[in-house]
């Protein structure tokens, strides 16, 4: 006996969820290449522009025959790609505008046809086009016993949308894995691809063809809005999390799965439109990645920036103290503030240096410890070596190099030339030894 809640799940939620997952995976995979090639909006254009094809097929055959609808949509998707290219080339119109012209005209045509179609009282509804009709995909003869789960009878009741989406997902996975190398080269460098004998134009058309297929197959179940969201958001999220294309693709599929399940669950709990919720959830996931990505996130970048700022402040402090000690000047705290500027950063740098044992405070004076002196010397050494370099190699005049050297001294590991060991900098000050 299958428990009640699970029976309800099988009846109402299993197929919508599976459809959404399959659509998300197909679109998410293909989206990687669209985002890389800066053609994300081609997916948008295609998913708007398949409308007239769908409706025309419906009007001609007078039925929702899936094969014909698919054909109609595929034809208008292809027409979109060709028309955009044609207008771009013949009319010398900016790509964005060319896309806008084509998809809006085709979509308008679709809406017009749709109005005519629904005038004949049929079940093709303008709003379904946007957000699909996931809720109609219930399993009419969902099993009540475990042993009925996989019998031919119950399996035969699986809605055709699920089969279409399954086929599409498998085709897309096959396409991406077989042509991974070609897609990668074409996406990054079409010129190199052509030299290697890969037809960049053909790959472009093949990719667009698969985007069209995925859009058309997903359309019926999840609606165009989810197609667009899934083509762009998972790939964009993955792009913020990884640097390599291979891992980006894997991450994008994981993100697509999380988005589909999370969005669907939320929609079911709140009782709102599932396709819309999944698209919104894709946005939430993306925003999270944008903020919290360990390598490219806003927080990580801000922290890194701050850490660097503190380091620079500390190095400036040690350098200044070293200079003062060179001239046998007393380093009073007031003196330090005068030369480094009165700000929070300097105060923090003093605390930090004291904590690390680089300086000691004696009354209101500061003295470098041996370790502090060593580090200060190496900073001043870098500074003066850079000054020397800027004068002798870059041809700057000695009184213009201080500011530049002040910034360059913080760079490490650049391998300042060690074969010449000047004793003094352009101003005649000694360069401390290593």
């Amino acid at each position, binding site marked *: 006996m299958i428990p009640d809640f699970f029976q309800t799940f099988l009846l109402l939620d299993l197929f919508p969820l599976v459809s959404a997952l399959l659509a998300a995976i197909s679109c998410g995979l293909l989206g990687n290449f669209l985002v890389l090639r800066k053609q994300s909006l081609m997916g948008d254009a295609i998913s708007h522009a398949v409308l007239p094809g769908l409706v025309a097929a419906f009007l001609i055959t007078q039925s929702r025959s899936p094969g014909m609808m698919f054909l109609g949509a595929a034809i208008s998707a292809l027409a979109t790609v060709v028309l955009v290219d044609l207008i771009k080339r013949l009319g010398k119109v900016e790509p964005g505008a060319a896309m*806008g012209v084509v998809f809006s005209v085709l979509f*308008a045509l679709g809406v017009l046809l749709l109005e005519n179609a629904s005038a004949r009282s049929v079940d093709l509804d303008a709003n379904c086009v946007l957000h699909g009709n996931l809720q109609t995909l219930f399993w009419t003869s969902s099993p009540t016993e475990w042993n009925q789960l996989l019998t031919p009878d119950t399996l035969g009741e699986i809605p055709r949308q699920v089969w279409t989406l399954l086929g599409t997902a498998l085709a897309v996975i096959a396409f991406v894995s077989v042509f991974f190398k070609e897609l990668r080269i074409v996406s990054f460098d079409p010129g190199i691809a052509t030299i290697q004998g890969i037809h960049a134009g053909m790959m472009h058309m093949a990719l667009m063809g698969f985007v069209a297929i995925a859009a058309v197959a997903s359309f019926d179940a999840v609606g165009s809005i989810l197609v667009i969201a899934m083509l762009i958001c998972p790939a964009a999220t993955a792009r913020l999390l990884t640097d390599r294309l291979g891992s980006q693709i894997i991450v994008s599929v994981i993100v697509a799965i999380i988005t589909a399940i999370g969005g669907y669950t939320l929609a079911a709990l709140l009782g709102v439109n599932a*396709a819309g919720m999944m698209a919104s959830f894709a946005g939430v996931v993306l925003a999270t990645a944008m903020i919290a990505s360990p390598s490219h996130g806003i927080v990580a970048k801000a922290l890194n920036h701050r850490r660097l700022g503190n380091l620079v402040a500390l190095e400036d402090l040690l350098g200044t103290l070293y200079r003062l000690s060179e001239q046998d000047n007393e380093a009073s705290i007031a003196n330090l503030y005068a030369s480094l500027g009165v700000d929070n950063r300097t105060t923090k740098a003093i605390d930090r240096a004291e904590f690390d044992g680089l300086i000691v405070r004696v009354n209101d004076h500061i003295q470098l410890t041996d370790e502090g002196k060593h580090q200060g010397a190496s900073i001043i050494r870098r500074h003066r070596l850079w000054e020397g370099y800027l004068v002798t190699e870059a041809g700057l005049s000695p009184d213009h190099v201080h500011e530049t050297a002040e910034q360059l001294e913080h760079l490490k590991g650049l391998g300042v030339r060690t074969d010449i060991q000047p004793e003094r900098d352009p101003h005649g000050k000694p360069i401390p030894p290593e």
Partner: protein
Amino acid sequence: MRPGGTSVQPLIEPIDNASEIVKVLTLHGGFNTNAVILGTTLLGIAAGVIGAFALLRKRSLTADALSHATLPGIAGAFLIATALGYSGRSMPVLMLGAAITGVIGVACIHLILQHTRLKEDAAIGIVLSVFFGIGIVLLSVVQTSKTGSAAGINHYIYGQTAAMTRSDAYLMGTIGVIASLIALVMLKEFMVVCFNEGFARSTGMPVWLIDSILLGLVVLITVSGLQAVGLILIVAMLIIPPAAARFWTDRLWRLVLISAFIGGLSGYGGAAISAIFPRKPAGSVIVLVAGSLFLVSMLLAPTRGVLADTARRIRLRLLIARDHVLESLYEIELGIANSMHPHASWWLIRLMSLRGWIKQDPHGLVLSESGREQGKRIHRNHRLWEQYLVSYADIAPTHVDWSVDQVEHVLSDELIADLEAALLERGISIPASNGGRA
């Protein structure tokens, strides 16, 4: 206007329809219809003007994201207004909501561009789909809530003029006029920012402020067109007219004028057609009218149109082929060549003898007086340029001929005089036109 039950009526119907059509087109079709047509026309003009700047500033698709991002605002405004006890369908309230989320959407695009390595296309796509998704979610909340049906709100997606009241139409028209006026006042600033942002910055122009004003105008057009055209198609009114106008001119103020004209015509035509025929949603018809105008412009425009361009190209190719034939005939006469140029085909020969460049005689083709003159000139140009390339451009004499063949046709008289002078100065003798290398 549907055929009635009797069999006589369909015969009378077309006549009735015809006068009805004229009435609507000449703005005699009833007060409400007139208001809608007028409002849409004004909106179309404004969209044409502002779209022109948006296109030049490459903001066309930002407007697409913006218009999709208005949906959560519309649904949200409806929910909030009904919760507070006001009518959720009042147009100003919904427009305010739409404008707020639209602007938030554009701000999100900027945030994404600023803080991540995603490119503009991805940022636009993300905002477009996520905001629209949120809107769909809110719409489904509206539909299930007890406070009211969402029937009025759904119209904002695809647009419906039939649901518009007269005051809605007036509001739309007024906003159109105001937006156009602002755009015309700012013409100079927009122009500088569009064509030379760097220059604008260096002269201390507040580029961000000008951009924000442009964006504000786009928002105005978008939200005021929502009810008539719908949020998916409103962007077409901003993109198509300027893209079509671009074929007709290279000058900015003409571009703005033509774009305004095309936009106004689309608005007028679309609204009128949808008033005449039942079940023709105005938004789609407007966009299709604009699309047809785009197609006409792309094919027929005299300067940048596809047909004119093709004709120009064919003409140039014919001229070059003619020159080659004349040159080789002249060289055959001189005895320095003995075969015809491969460009000579029977129809070209025929065309040339019709024009009187060449004559048929029993021994074959001979040059007419004018043809000989022309052949001589081309031959001399060829030699002159060849000489120039050899002495100035360091090209090996064996490689000269090929590049000369392409250039000899486009040498202007001044350039020839310059070449002669330059060669003389270097003490290089100018090639004579009789083929001798002097």
